């Protein structure tokens, strides 16, 4: 499996990036899910895949019986999955709320609302320009 995992991670990552660049915020979020998955898979590969035995210590012994899977990437990925889920939930809620407030889930249309905060960036730059001229 270690031979094809890098390709698999790359394929998922590529699809994730493509989805991230779509107009619809929903597809953007799908992109985030895919990217997290791909990165987790990459971490898993980096810890080397050699065995099917989980890193568990049998009753009565103090060391796991070799060979056992590398526990370190597993701990990292476990954390990443949970945090990734938190991010996803937040992003979804944000998309939902921005639809409620602005009536669109299209990235490109977010700018067009005059009350939208991201357009404040543009005005801010203009102010900077005028300051010392």
């Amino acid at each position, binding site marked *: 499996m270690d031979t094809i995992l890098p390709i698999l991670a790359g394929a998922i990552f590529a699809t994730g990036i493509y989805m991230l660049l779509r107009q619809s915020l929903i597809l953007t979020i799908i992109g985030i899910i895919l990217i997290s998955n791909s990165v987790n898979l990459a971490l898993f590969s980096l810890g080397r895949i050699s065995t099917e035995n989980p890193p568990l210590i049998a009753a009565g012994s103090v*060391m796991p019986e070799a060979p056992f899977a590398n526990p370190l990437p597993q701990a990292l990925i476990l954390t990443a999955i949970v945090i990734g889920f938190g991010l996803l939930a937040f992003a979804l809620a944000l998309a939902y709320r921005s639809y409620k407030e602005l009536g669109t889930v299209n990235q490109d249309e977010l700018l067009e609302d005059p009350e939208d905060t991201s357009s404040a960036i543009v005005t801010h730059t203009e102010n900077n320009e005028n300051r010392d001229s």
Partner: protein
Amino acid sequence: MLIVIGLIFVTALLAPWIFKLFREKTGWILALLPLGSFLYLLSFMPEIAAGGTITQSTTWVSMEFFEVNLAFYLDGLSLMFGLIITGIGTFIVLYGAGYLSGNEYLPRFYLAILLFMGSMLGVVLADNLISIFVFWELTSFTSYLLIGFNHEQEASRKAALQALLVTGIGGLALLGGMVLMGFASGQWEVSALLNEGDIIREHPHYLAILLLVLGGAFTKSAQFPFHFWLPGAMAAPTPVSAYLHSATMVKAGVYLLARLHPVLGFTDTWMILVGGFGVVTLLISAWLSLSFTDLKQILAYSTVMALGTMMMLIGLGTELAMQGLAVYILSHAMYKGALFMVAGGIDHEAGTRDVLKLGGLRKLMPISAVAAALAALSMAGIPPLFGFIAKEIVYEAALEATLLPVLFITLAVVANIAIVAASAIVVIRPFFGKQVETPKKAHETPPSMWIGPIILAVLSVVFGVLPFLVDKSLIVPVAGSVWGEPLDFYLSLWHGFNMPLMLSLLTLAGGLLTYRIWDGLRESAPMKGYQMVFARFPVNVYDGLVNGMLGLAGWQTRILQNGLMSNYLVTIMVTALVAIGYTFLTQSGIIWNPDFSNVHVYDWALSITIVGSLGIMLAFGNSRLTIIVAAGIIGYGLSLIYLMHGAADLAMTQVLVETLTVILVVLVLIHVPKIKEVRSGVSRTRDGVIAISAGLMMTLLILAVTAVPFDAFISEYYAEASYPLAHGRNIVNVILVDFRALDTMGEVVVVAIAGLAVYALIKMTRPGSSKENKS
């Protein structure tokens, strides 16, 4: 010496409260501080005059490569600067009390001027290169505060910023030069560096060190083409101009080059650069002073001329030039300090500084008139004043220059002619002639404002008539410090009928003639053009650079932060791809053995399923249901991969999270409209190229890392320690809840905050935004 500087800083910070206690008397009380410091420094004079030096050192920062000591070094040069700073500082504190009397920001003035005084003393007394730099920057910073004292006026703020930018950029260059110098010689103390001149001069970095140090010194001391900030800084209140922009801070560059002359000097490059810039500056600025009618502008340009003269002397680098430098610095500090204070007094009492609107003030302001007259005579170099001695030695040094003496002496005489005329203008126009109506009814300044000028002016006479008072005790040690070895000479007023005296007479005659035709000269077209080219144009260049920088910043912000998320993403991705791709190209170490023997049938099946789901997702991108199902399949597929390779915990978590994810996405998708993609084919192609490159990069990264031999040190530690230390049999769980428990707690907090944010986003409404619900 640390105590003196520390005391000044502490008093500065307490000054606003001291002001609350003593109100109008604060100036007289605070003046005791520089006076005390002056006397303290004066007590070292016998020891310095006898050829001694004093070092005091306290370790501050100690590091492997270098140490920064709060070390202080007192020799002739630093003693004279210290005396000027504290001596004139005493008068300035008094003067400021009178000049700014009634100004609501007077406490702020005391604070800033004392902070400046402490910093400036630090520059001249510090022994360590890094501490000199720190104090140097502090003078720039406090100077910014003082120039911008009238912060309600835009002109003040602009002038303050201009001075800060010009000297600040120079300061950065200086830091570079000092660090190079420290590493080249291994010495960070100036006192030790003074013996390492040969090492530095022969070091391959000599030219770089020299240019960087000169960059710092020339900007600080307003040498052409950086001279423009000094006249601009006249926006400051006059006590500040008199102190910072005439007597002390602008001489920091001169001090630095004089200090480092034994280390960096004695080369042709030094002589050409320092002498060349000095002589150009003195010539240009001397005649510029005649193109203005504002007293402070005239004095400012004559100060730039004096700084140019000092630079020229340092550049000439002969014994005689060192003598001239020592005398010139002292005489200039005295007469220019006095003249600035008188100019401020006229402004304060008569309401204008324009010499065309002033006249006949000598009857109304007799003490100021005497002070101004004596100081101006000294500036013009007329015997028996101290300025005469200074000018004679300057001429003598120029005549004996080792390179192009004719050029140096000609330019010096031409410039001094203008200075004689300027001296006449600043004293004759306001004080003599017909009395004219002034905006305010003029009368003599309060004692706090005339005591400084009159003492300085009288000293100019005393030192001129009795030069032995200062020569052996101060001037000789100063010249020795700059020369690098002790010198022995004496000063006298009368040198006999020699070349310098003839040139002095010529200068005087030329100056008086120039004064007579000044009104016509000032208004003539060549003078206007001259002013345009050398006074206005540099400011325009500076403004252009600053506006250009702001424009560039605005432009790149508009390009990079245009508010379109897809643009941000593309920028980030392309930057990452280029950076990582470049690294791959320059150091490729990827090994990929396509060994499929250990790939099982179920591995193939799983991989094909996942890749197939990706394909379906891309092909049916507009169908919400298809996409969710495909994403779900990929997630569950991943959990199977984990399960089959010894990661049961991961598999369980992934199944759980994937299930929740699908549910959440479905819940949201119910409420939002169908997916519509209306992007053009071009942008799809662009995104496709980026995506494929990114995927490729990911694959190559994994291959590159796995090509490196695996070091299982940390993993093995956890496996071995898990049961004995934490009594847990599931190593992954032990890592999470025991070894890295704090991290896990942080993670739990993050998830909790995300949960709160989700709740807020869904449930809460902004007050006042109850516009129509579009769901």
